[in-house]
């Protein structure tokens, strides 16, 4: 287990029962989103961030350095699902940041809105297909970085298109690659390479790739910068 060089403001390691656990400063003290443990530390309440539930937590634990989210960031989040990871990102960006969440399924979006958005005024939920940027309601802040986790075969293209529309040169993309949703017959490593090549030929520079093993099988997270 490797620590990241520098964690964003609202993220830290907390000792729970003798073990160091990743946690984010609770934006809504007292509120637990998916049953995660709440823990006081230096006068603030923190939410333990479970790497088995959140791929972003898994990638941080596995050595992702330089997370591009911090206090005040405006983030475009593709594939928010019921909001496990978004809730922690919401903790990180705090009250001056904003999280635009795109989710295609209205069923999971309902849970997301009821259980997460309604307690957190730094989230804007948008029910739309991330392939169809035209169907979004206004993304009304300049976006600092894009997070994409939608397990679709064409998800790298989807991420690229969203980046081209919403971020400018120097901004970052975090892309979760689930090799099984792209091609079940190929080796995961081959697929990670192939998707990174795709990013490079579309004007991105790859900063880092983190394998999410043992928290997730056949998953990697790639951090890339739009040139």
């Amino acid at each position, binding site marked *: 287990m490797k620590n990241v060089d520098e964690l964003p403001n609202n993220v830290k390691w907390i000792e729970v029962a003798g073990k160091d656990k990743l946690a984010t400063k609770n934006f809504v003290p007292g509120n637990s989103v998916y049953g995660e443990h709440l823990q006081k530390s230096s006068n603030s309440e923190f939410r333990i961030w479970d790497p088995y539930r959140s791929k972003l937590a898994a990638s941080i634990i596995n050595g992702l350095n330089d997370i591009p989210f911090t206090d005040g960031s405006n983030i475009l989040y593709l594939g928010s*699902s*019921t909001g496990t990871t978004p809730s922690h990102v919401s903790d990180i960006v705090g009250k001056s940041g*904003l999280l635009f969440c795109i989710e*295609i*399924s*209205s*069923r*999971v*979006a*309902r849970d997301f*809105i009821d259980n997460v*958005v309604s307690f957190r*005024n730094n989230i*804007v*939920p*948008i*029910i739309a297909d991330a392939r169809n*940027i*035209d*169907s979004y*309601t*206004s*993304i*009304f*802040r*300049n976006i600092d970085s894009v997070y994409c986790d*939608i*397990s*679709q*075969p064409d998800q790298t293209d989807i991420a690229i298109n969203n980046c081209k*529309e919403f971020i400018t040169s120097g901004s970052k993309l975090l892309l979760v690659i689930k090799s*099984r*949703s*792209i091609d*079940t017959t190929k080796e995961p490593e081959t697929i990670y390479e192939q998707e990174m090549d795709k990013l490079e030929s579309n004007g991105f520079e790859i900063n880092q790739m983190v394998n999410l093993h043992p928290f997730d099988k056949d998953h990697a997270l790639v951090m890339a910068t739009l040139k």
Partner: protein
Amino acid sequence: MTNKALLTEAGIIIINDKFEVVQSLRFKPDSEISFYSQIKNANVPDVVKTFLDNLSHEFSDSLEVNDQSLLEILSKIYPDKNFIYKTIDSSNLFPLFVQSGFFSSEEEISNFLQKFSIEYSKQQIRDVSGQEDLQIIEGINSLDELDKAINILMARINEWYGLHFPELENLVKDSNEYFKFVSLGLNRSSITEKDLVSFSFSEKKLDAIFSAAQDSKGGEINSKDLSIISILSENVINLVKVRDKMLNYINDLMNNVAPNLSAIAGPTIGARLIAKSGGLMKLAKLPSSTIQVLGAEKALFRSLKSGSRPPKHGIIFQHDKVHSSPKWQRGKIARSLASKIAIAARIDVFRGSKEIDIEHSLDERYREIQEKYASPVANRNNYSKKKHKKLRRSMNEKRRRTS
């Protein structure tokens, strides 16, 4: 010099190439969502129509539009003008909102847009939520009833027209063609080639029909009888068309609402399971042993009472992989199908999107069973009393829970 038309959450704004507002329409405050979503659904509220109708002097022959729905609406109003789809950077939106007098401060705009997005999402959810499984249930029940009605009426028509021309049934085997034939209301003694041009019967077939018509064992019929039979037949043909539409409708809805269940069970069987259990959420909560016998309740309760062998499958027996397999494999295939269905329904409820490789796991298991149990094994299915007790307990529990 091209002007732009912008659909925004608060209204429509027309700007020139210097980003100066030349015209604008503010949606009625607190009803913005209704205006916005109507336009997105290609409906045009009256005020919007009036506004758009009077735009002609704002552009000469082309106009850029930031939204596809608005673009389509405009193309209908101005069929000979040229509209180009082009988005604008949303950072330009704020000054335009202020310039057009929609809002006075950035803070006001942010608050509005954030509130708008939440409410708009909630409305999208309301539009589909809960309702979808109800539509599926009504749809699949209609499909099954249509099938029943079509079968009954077809048998009736066969019998009725058969009084007059019994040989036809064997000559025109395709039921679509047969009922089309009957719907022409032809008296067999006066059929001409011209009557049958719309069929693609071969020369040989035509000869056979004519000679059968002449030597028919059928009785005479008058034009009143013929006319009512032909109307009935025409309507059965229409019912078949309705049935096909219904099937497409169910397939679409199922692929949308329960893509994983559809991939595993097939859309119609998936829909029947939803109907039988009372909804997708309820289906997702059932153990796979119950899913396996859904639709075979009668047989199951009979078995519980009498201690006879319980049914191995209910609705899922209709699945190709089950009913087309040899008898001794069916129970195993049904069990693995049911367990995959249980997983698929849960993914549909809790995640919502299609798992790419979900059908593979079933195919694999299916192949395994086919190989491993290629031939019938003696003394298989050793049905034990113990199992029976367990089953009875779980059924009683289920009955208690549902009552």
